[in-house]
């Protein structure tokens, strides 16, 4: 029997020739990460259990990105805990304000994730790194505390679902539309405990930024992980990292065997995937953006670990440049990292967005989880390029979030209601 890419990565990490779905293994951890919300609980558990040292200060990342720059005194206390722990244990990858970014944009961009890695993070969107052919999965604070001490994690080897995307996407349709559409097809527990393996010619033609977006949302279908196979785009991405994660590639690039076993194979013709929006209050409530009718909005959020990369901001700017955000709409831009900010500043993206009337934030998770920098009042409605639209996710329990791509979000910011680029008069496009 052949193996999936996920089984091969986990076999290597478990020091075994092969492992198969259903087995429980102890896998070596290449990187363990946590943020200002999940690390404080983990630090308390780590210390309560009597651990005095971390397994490797270079293989832990502490990223204060959720309620930072500190939104209130309690949040400042949590950040302080993280900072002091990082100093005490000489954590190499602690990122202070001014250098920090949104963890799932920052860590791969900083060259900390290599193909074949096993990454566990105390944040559910840790599944993002499957875009560089790594196995990565979200865990809780106690699992992170254990990984910090032990350098290993227990895992049940997941079954995989193979998604085969064929055909050419319609104009403006991006990886975000593909993943919202996919979650709509299988539901919010359609991939429960499983790995989502994204394959096919349409995935090969996606940019790295789009692959990150797709893997990021595997958790919204209940998935343990999302993964895209290694190709020349992965190589180019890794070679352009500052620390060169490609240096660790040798012997760690895996691919699924032709006779690998899958729980399910789903074929999706992307030419029939519309611009997709997920309506409140589940990511699986997917619908064609053009069919929603007149849904008036109060706020647009463009950014986050899902869509806060340079390409996302450029797509938004391509629609907003030279125009004005609708007078009844607040449009907030949440770039993923300081480098994204710098790049957006140097290529004119930031200027176009600010001139259009957008608020340009420092990198933070901010309003995505109802933290700060754009929390919604009762009865308010937002279109967001983020990943969740649960009850109360962006603020008051009586507010609503519609999930969409940067193109749809920017078009909606102009229109004052949910709209497609075509509906706001954009010339046919959607640069790939």
């Amino acid at each position, binding site marked *: 029997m052949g193996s999936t890419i996920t089984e091969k990565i986990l076999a290597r990490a478990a020091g075994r020739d092969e492992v198969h779905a259903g087995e429980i293994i102890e896998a070596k951890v290449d990187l363990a990460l946590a943020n200002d919300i999940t690390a404080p609980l983990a630090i308390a558990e780590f210390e309560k*259990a009597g651990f005095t040292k971390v397994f490797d200060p270079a293989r832990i990342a502490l990223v204060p990105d959720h309620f930072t720059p500190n939104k209130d005194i309690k949040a400042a206390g949590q950040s302080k805990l993280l900072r002091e722990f990082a100093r005490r244990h000489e954590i190499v990858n602690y990122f202070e304000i001014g250098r920090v970014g949104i963890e799932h944009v920052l860590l791969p961009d900083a060259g900390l994730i290599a193909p074949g890695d096993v990454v566990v993070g105390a944040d559910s969107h840790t599944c993002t790194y499957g875009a560089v052919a790594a196995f990565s999965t979200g865990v809780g604070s106690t699992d992170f505390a*254990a990984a910090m001490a032990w350098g290993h994690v227990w895992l049940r080897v997941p079954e995989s679902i193979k998604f085969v995307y064929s055909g050419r996407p319609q104009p403006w349709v991006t990886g975000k539309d593909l993943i919202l559409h996919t979650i709509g097809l299988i539901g*919010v527990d359609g991939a429960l405990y499983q790995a989502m393996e994204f394959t096919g010619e349409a995935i090969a033609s996606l940019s790295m930024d789009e692959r990150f977006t797709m893997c990021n949302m595997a958790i919204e279908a209940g998935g343990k992980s999302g993964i895209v196979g290694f190709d020349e785009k992965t190589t180019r991405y890794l070679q352009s990292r500052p620390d060169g994660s490609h240096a660790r590639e040798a012997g760690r690039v895996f691919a699924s065997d032709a006779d690998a076993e899958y729980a399910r194979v789903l074929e999706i013709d992307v030419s029939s995937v519309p611009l997709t929006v997920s309506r409140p209050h589940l990511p699986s409530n997917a619908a064609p953006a053009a069919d929603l009718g007149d849904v008036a909005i109060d706020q647009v959020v463009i950014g986050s670990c899902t869509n806060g990369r340079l390409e996302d901001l450029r797509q938004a700017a391509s629609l907003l440049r030279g125009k004005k955000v609708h007078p009844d709409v607040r449009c907030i831009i949440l770039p993923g990292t300081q480098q994204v900010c710098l790049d957006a500043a140097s290529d004119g993206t930031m200027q176009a967005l600010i001139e259009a009337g957008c608020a340009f934030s420092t990198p933070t998770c901010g309003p995505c989880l109802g933290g700060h920098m754009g929390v919604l009042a009762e009865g308010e409605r937002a279109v967001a390029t983020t990943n969740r639209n649960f009850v109360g996710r962006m603020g008051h329990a009586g507010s609503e979030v519609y999930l969409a791509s940067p193109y749809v979000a920017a078009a909606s910011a102009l229109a004052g209601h949910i709209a497609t680029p075509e509906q706001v008069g954009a010339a046919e496009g959607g640069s790939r």
Partner: protein
Amino acid sequence: MIFEGTVHAYGRDVDTDVIIPARYLNTSDPAELARHCMEDIDAGFVTSVRPGDIIVAQENFGCGSSREHAPVAIKASGVSVVVAASFARIFYRNAINTGLPIVVCPAAAGGAKAGDRLRVDLDAGTVENLTQGKKYDAEAFPPFMQELIDRGGLLPYVKSRVAETEGA
């Protein structure tokens, strides 16, 4: 271990944002988290919950964010055990790791109504609806997870594994 309590019933896909909204995650204090438990799905929960009560839900309980504050808040609110048709995977791990008893039992979850009295026997693996006079078998945990539960959570297990490594 046997728990007997009154049912608080919920549907499917109860996410960790409604179990404990992120606006309260600027603290890790269990008592403070418990004061806001289930706030965005059931505003009356905090005042109606009694020590030993049981949460019953349908599929995919605890989906979404990895926040361990969710099982911590449920446990600190006095809930003795959560019975569901299925659990989202991070919540499932977090519950085992932090010692919040959980039981997978679709039949019991499907039949229970708010206010019913349940008796959950973790050792026998049964859920009994005392109000309706029905008894169900729960799904057994895989042996490794049962070992973690028996040891009192993940960290006691990891402590012994780290000690083995250092002793080797």
